[in-house]
């Protein structure tokens, strides 16, 4: 198995991916998240968000608070059964 440093276990995002993206010019954390799908998996960023925010803060010289200021949590905040959203047809 190739040695890799995994940041986001859900979507297989590596530390290298994060650093490369920042080096390539991504200077907004929300943009980075959308580009790499960090925190878009079923754990909703519970593993990756803090590590990624710290890496981003370190590389861009920003404060973590600032980095996360655009982060929004949307429902459902955890995966739930799809049947919860299935309603009877008709109207």
């Amino acid at each position, binding site marked *: 198995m190739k040695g890799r440093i995994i940041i986001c276990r859900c979507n297989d995002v590596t530390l290298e991916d994060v650093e490369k993206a920042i080096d390539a010019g991504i200077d907004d954390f929300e943009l980075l998240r959308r580009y790499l799908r960090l925190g878009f*998996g*079923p754990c909703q960023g*519970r593993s990756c968000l803090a590590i990624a925010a710290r890496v981003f803060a370190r590389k861009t010289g920003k404060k973590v608070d600032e980095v996360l200021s655009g982060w929004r949590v949307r429902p459902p905040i955890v995966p739930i059964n799809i049947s919860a959203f299935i309603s009877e047809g008709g109207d």
Partner: protein
Amino acid sequence: MLWWFKSPLESDRRLWEHPILSFHRGRKVKFLFEGREVEAYEGESVAVALYAAGINVYSWSPSLHRPRGPFCMIGKCSSCFMVVNGVPNVRTCREPVKDGLMVERQAGWVPPPSPHNDSIGSQSREEELRTDVLIVGGGPAGLAAAIKLSEYGLDVTLVDEHFKLGGQLLKQTHKFFGSQELFGGLRGFQVAEKLISKLREVSNVRIFTETTAFGVFRGGVVGLASRDSVVWVKPRAVIASTGAQERYLDFINNDLPGVIGAGGVQTLMNEFGVKPGEEALVVGSGNVGVIVSYQLLQAGVKVRAVLELLPEIGGWFVHAAKLRRYGVPILTSHTIKAALGSERVEGAVITAVDERFKPVEGSEEVIKCDLILLAVGLEPDARLHAQAGAVMKWVPELGGLVPVRTEYLETSVPSMYVAGDASGIEEATTAMVEGWVAALAIASKMVDGSKAEKALNELTKYNKFLWSEYRSSPVIARARKGKESVTVTQEEMERLRATYPPPIHFR
């Protein structure tokens, strides 16, 4: 023998003897793992039973196809997802074992079956519910709050994602400090037993287990989803005591099965009596790191070393001294560089670091082990507050993002409270006291006359204890500093609400 016969899984990592614990196992149940029979005990989760049966790989990751095993064991991460009875992406760490379940590994994110597939079940039942107080999370804070509110005669609804109440108290096997009221002298899981049995005696607390609060919506409605129903709750107040998750660490092969959170290991060995491995490396020498190392020794696991990035040991001296007596090396100014192995940890590369935490060249060393514990701290899980629009603040001393609150633990979303680790990482004792504080703040507003006065008196007493007594101890000065930095006066809170108008109101 028929050629398609598959032998049952016969290895058993369960502990049958332990110096301080006895494990009360339920009735035997049998289920199938990829066609092979697995024996388990009622009360275990699928993830625990498979671990006990010697399974290391639970899934393969979506794009790099890397093997993954369980990590957090409490339903926060995504590493134990499997296909159960045809339904993919089931969190097996909180899926109870049952006779006849069919469990398979999954590769990547398997799309859910079509709604017409029988395995997904029919449309959920929908219900609406009014309650005085909704409590999200049945750990120490939530349980304490529920009991307190019931004493004041309020109608309480308590939800928890797990099939058991008690939260992380269930895996705490050390004895608590403090007075009888604070359960001093009891072990954490005994505290949970006491709280839960008290809760079963009262009639005004409605309990939903295996139920997730998935969002707060306009009109002050909270959505609860369980296996086969959705309940739309309209509470007059909410206490979200949603706990914490384990912090992850970046090193090579940090996702290899056998790299497990320290809390995940505690769930396996302390709560369910499953030996997590034979030889362990512990990363982090804070209190969790040193306590869990001792618990590993009690479970018969050899602890090869405890690593600490800083030049000093982080945990309390008594715990560290105990480890030293057992000959466990605590290596300060050291960190992990890589996990070795293909489908399970077989070793680790460690390295010394300099005063700027950079690896010292030539100091690398290989340690043979089959288990790597990450004890590098916890992070509050206050997503429900964040989603509801509460003003949040990043507080390193508390482990991450937490809601700004008044001394009564009310956030900038009026009538939405926070208690326990979700308010910033501390410990079970402070979590229970915070549960009481939030409950009493709510009770003082919802009940009348002399009862309201009594609630206020109790509230003052507990807040005084929290701030002037408990948190004055120098060993928790860091947490105190953190909590001070997010606690604002009522006037400051009103100003915050004027600047960031709360989108949700509970009535």
